[in-house]
């Protein structure tokens, strides 16, 4: 443990500081905030997937309470326009309210205001829209290969970006065994407990727009508001209060975050819009949809030679701010290799536009798809070679003695023991026992299967990698602002956003560790652009690394200031002081932070004239140096039992062996992993946003869209390897997303293992009973 460690520092299972308000019902979300004279908004949404010649007719008596794109255009509002620097990325506008064309069911067309939401919805039904229907582009493969129409006419096709990642392809000649498979991960919605929510008003006294939004990125939202509405930065104040889950859905701008504030400025009254679940399931069905044709090449001994793939990502109709519509396709194209050694790589990846909501970077971002494709291809290869899939993985994982390891596509794995994670998962799931159980038929006719999924996750995407990849949003340094308060406590401002991760606790633990102070004396302030340092926000599993690092570094700067004052009060040399237990320790005595703070803030007459006026309020920052990203990794393994008559899958056992570097709070880490894994189970088995051939969504309520529940996971067993990253403060690695990445791979592999007697495979998520029975039926024909 580093110096100054306390029972509340790094590594302690501190109870969450947030628990009291949440458990007492004192959390405050946007929907809890009521302003005087506030109006409620309801949104007229497109009932059709694709149409032109849109025309909107406002209700006669309520013209002043209904707003359309024309109203916004005449006021000079600019659309969302996000293109990356990636060569060939085709540009498009994302209108806040539809103009001329309708491009997906659920697209916002008009906004209606009334004193209550019900009355606003009445207005919405009285607002009439007309249009000329166009053929809908529903399927991503059709969109790429044989489009029935064009989402954006000016492109001439529906391919947003066609990128080729090719390295040492000539080595493919060395392969002697190949397997080719086609995989599909279907579209789903993110479904945070709290949906999107926006409350906006013009504050005439402050002369600024105040926007409350359920957001992961309040500062980025502020940028967008300034850009679209033509406001100065000092005219916009964004507040993200308690946020009930984000998972990436809230790290992009949604049109409502622009047009609700704009409407509030028009009517000069506060306006609130609360997304309901139906709106979420229709207009925000926006995650995960990938298609893969993968060929895995190996030699006869099972050494992987190379991978060839053709990837299509359904990016939906528009390019989202700030991450664009090519984030997933380029990430999938570049990192399909996963944690394995390859000597040849040839992957084509296309992002295509369809008449569906624009894709967002949902927890895991592209990696659930590539992990699913690679890991199922590996099991197919093992079946072809007649070997144990576990052994084939062990043979091909990047070994620990190769760290740091340059990947074939130019990435760098910083640290870790991938094989040990697999080994431990194999031991925990007791692979040998499962294999021996499988040698006898189950008494009830059920089928048993075991499956593995390994992944790596680049966490806290860094500046130069983001710039190299041509990404639209490039993160830089992260800052923390720390004030030693007059009672000797700390108020810490960060620009990242806590939306359920317990960051008010874990970030405070960093300061506790640095100064050895009681966590009750440390408050983390966030979610308010007026009071927090600028930040690109919370996404990419970056907050603990970046904001945690910033707090650690800022504590160091602040610590010097505190020691200087302490040295004066102790009448000793600065070099003879140190900090422990929230005290400055001198050669013969100590002085508390509280005493130092009292003198600085309230009795400055006790300080010498040449004291540093910078005082005890410091902003500093952090970025890894070099600015590489730490890679987290894990192996998930599970045992399933299949009812072959109904196609139902039961998870009998599920284990995770993971490495997120140094663990800040074990309880919170386990919670993050278990929560992520349950979302991964949803992707694997339950969640699907279905569409008919005309692009009409068929999953618009929870009766038609199935979420996993607490009954759907056995008691997860989580095992931790701890390989501190050399790149970060305390060696932490990001872990927010990882849990959600490999469950589709591990579960589908277990299902295919159970079905091996039929000689069939499932190749599509979610693996529903229908898909399993159809696969089994396929073996009989």
């Amino acid at each position, binding site marked *: 443990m580093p110096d100054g460690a306390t029972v509340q520092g790094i590594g302690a299972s501190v109870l969450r500081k947030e628990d009291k308000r949440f458990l007492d019902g004192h959390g405050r979300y946007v929907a809890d905030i009521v302003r005087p004279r506030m109006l409620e908004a309801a949104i007229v949404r497109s009932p059709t997937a694709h149409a032109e010649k849109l025309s909107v007719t406002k209700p006669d008596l309520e013209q002043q309470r209904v707003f359309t794109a024309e109203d916004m255009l005449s006021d000079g509002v600019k659309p969302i326009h996000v293109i990356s620097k990636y060569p060939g990325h085709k540009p498009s506008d994302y209108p806040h309210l539809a103009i001329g064309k309708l491009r997906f069911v659920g697209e916002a067309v008009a906004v209606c205001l009334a004193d209550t939401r019900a009355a606003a919805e009445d207005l919405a*039904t009285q607002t009439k829209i007309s249009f000329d229907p166009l053929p809908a582009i529903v399927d991503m493969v059709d969109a790429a290969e044989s489009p029935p129409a064009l989402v954006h006419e000016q492109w001439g096709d529906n391919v947003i970006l066609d990128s080729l990642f090719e390295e040492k392809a000539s080595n493919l000649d060395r392969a002697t065994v190949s397997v080719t498979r086609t995989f599909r991960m279907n579209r789903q919605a993110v479904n945070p407990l709290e949906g999107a929510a926006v409350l906006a008003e013009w504050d005439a006294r402050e002369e600024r727009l105040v926007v409350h939004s359920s957001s992961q990125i309040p500062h980025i939202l502020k940028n967008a508001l300034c850009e679209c509405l033509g406001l100065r930065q000092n005219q916009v104040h964004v507040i993200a209060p308690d946020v009930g889950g984000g998972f990436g859905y809230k790290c992009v701008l949604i049109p409502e975050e622009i047009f609700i504030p704009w409407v509030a400025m028009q009517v000069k009254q506060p306006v609130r819009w609360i997304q309901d679940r139906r709106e979420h399931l229709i207009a925000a069905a926006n995650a995960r949809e990938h298609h893969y044709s993968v060929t895995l090449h190996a030699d006869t001994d099972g050494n992987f030679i190379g991978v060839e793939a053709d990837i299509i990502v359904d990016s939906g109709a528009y390019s989202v701010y700030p991450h664009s519509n090519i984030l997933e396709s380029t990430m999938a194209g570049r990192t399909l290799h996963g944690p394995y050694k390859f000597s040849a790589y040839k992957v084509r990846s296309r992002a295509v536009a369809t008449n569906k909501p624009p894709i967002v970077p949902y927890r895991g971002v592209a990696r659930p798809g590539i992990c699913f494709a690679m890991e199922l291809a590996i099991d197919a290869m093992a079946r072809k070679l007649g070997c144990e899939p576990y052994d084939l993985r062990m043979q091909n994982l990047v070994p620990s003695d190769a760290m740091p390891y340059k990947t074939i596509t130019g990435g760098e794995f910083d640290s870790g023991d991938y094989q040990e994670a697999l080994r431990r998962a194999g031991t925990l799931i007791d692979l040998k026992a499962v294999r021996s159980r499988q040698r006898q038929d189950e008494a009830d006719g059920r089928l048993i299967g075991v499956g593995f999924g390994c992944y790596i996750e680049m966490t806290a995407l860094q500046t130069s990698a983001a710039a190299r990849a041509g990404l639209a949003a490039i993160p830089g340094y992260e800052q923390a602002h720390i004030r030693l308060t007059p009672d000797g406590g700390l108020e810490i401002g960060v620009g990242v956003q806590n939306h359920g991760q317990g960051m008010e606790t874990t970030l405070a633990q960093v300061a506790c560790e640095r100064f050895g102070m009681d966590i009750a004396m440390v408050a983390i302030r966030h979610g308010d652009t007026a009071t927090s340092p600028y930040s690109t926000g919370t996404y990419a599993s970056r907050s603990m690394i970046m904001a945690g690092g910033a707090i650690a570094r800022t504590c160091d700067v602040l610590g010097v200031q505190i020691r200087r004052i302490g040295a004066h009060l102790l009448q000793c040399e600065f070099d003879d002081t140190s900090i422990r237990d929230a005290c400055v320790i001198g050669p013969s005595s100590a002085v508390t932070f509280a005493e130092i703070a009292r003198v600085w803030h309230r009795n400055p007459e006790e300080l010498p004239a040449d004291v540093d006026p910078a005082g005890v309020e410091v902003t500093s920052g952090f970025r890894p140096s070099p600015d590489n990203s730490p890679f987290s990794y894990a192996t998930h393994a599970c045992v399933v039992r299949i009812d072959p008559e109904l196609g139902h899958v039961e998870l009998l056992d599920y284990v995770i062996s993971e490495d997120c570097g140094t663990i800040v709070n074990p309880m919170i880490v386990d919670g993050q992993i278990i929560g992520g894994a349950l979302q991964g189970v949803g992707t694997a088995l339950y969640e699907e946003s279905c569409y008919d051939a005309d692009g009409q969504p068929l999953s618009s309520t929870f009766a038609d869209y199935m979420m996993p529940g607490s009954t759907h996971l056995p008691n997860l067993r989580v095992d931790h390897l701890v390989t501190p990253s050399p790149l970060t403060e305390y060696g932490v690695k990001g872990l927010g997303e990882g849990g959600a990445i490999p469950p589709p791979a591990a579960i589908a592999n277990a299902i295919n293992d159970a079905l091996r007697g039929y000689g069939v495979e499932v190749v599509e998520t979610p693996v529903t009973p229908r898909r399993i029975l159809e696969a089994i039926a396929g073996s009989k024909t």
Partner: protein
Amino acid sequence: MKPAKFEHQRMASLDEAVKALGNAEGETRVLGGGQSLGPMMNLRLAQPDVVLDLSKVEGLDGIEETGNAIRVGARVSHARIEDGEVPGKTGDYMQFVATGISYRSVRNRGTIGGSVAHADPSADWPSALLALGGSVTAAGGNGIRTISLDGFTVGPFSTGLGWDEILTGFELPVLGTDANWGYYKVNRKPGEFADAIGAVTLGVEARAVCGATESAPFRVTEIEERLASGVQEVSIAEVRDILDRYDAGFDDYELQIHAVALSRAVQGAFA
């Protein structure tokens, strides 16, 4: 989503409710526990002008055994049935069914009468009660009448109730202490609506029901005949062949899961 404007009228008595329904102008819906009508109104799939709320009407929440029948009031909640208030073997069967309906807070409010009158094809009671047999009682402008449960559910969200009638309760057969029953609901999550239902009772007569179809649940006479003749097992393949002869509109997957449900219901009856 919030409901369109409607008038909420709390009824003090069954008489008042029947009169209000008979005299109503515009679309009128009767509210039991509100666990289906509520969400449908919020989604604006139902937009009644008037809602007649039965929650304060007395006399609709009784459970009593009268010799050869058990009377269950329309306003009896799933939770009371789950808690074993319906006596005897009939109660055992109904308790099993009720326990699988949604989750407890819905069961606390949702009512058996509301469920049958609503006639959602995926709900439990329309199928479960058809398999039990007996009758529905209804009050209307022309007084009280009894309607057989056979054929009561006509189709999705459609029953044999007249436009001016309110479902007041059920008269259900008393299953003997040695009677067998089996109920198998195919769904993917405890409490979800059913993808398929198989329901079997062997009381005075053998009844076998295929439920959670696209339309009304239906009795499968071929299986009833086999059960009546003492058969205690029907294979999935046999049920598939039998169900395939009904015009239920099943695709292959639906045929399979309905066959499994019925086969396992039979299996459950003799387990």
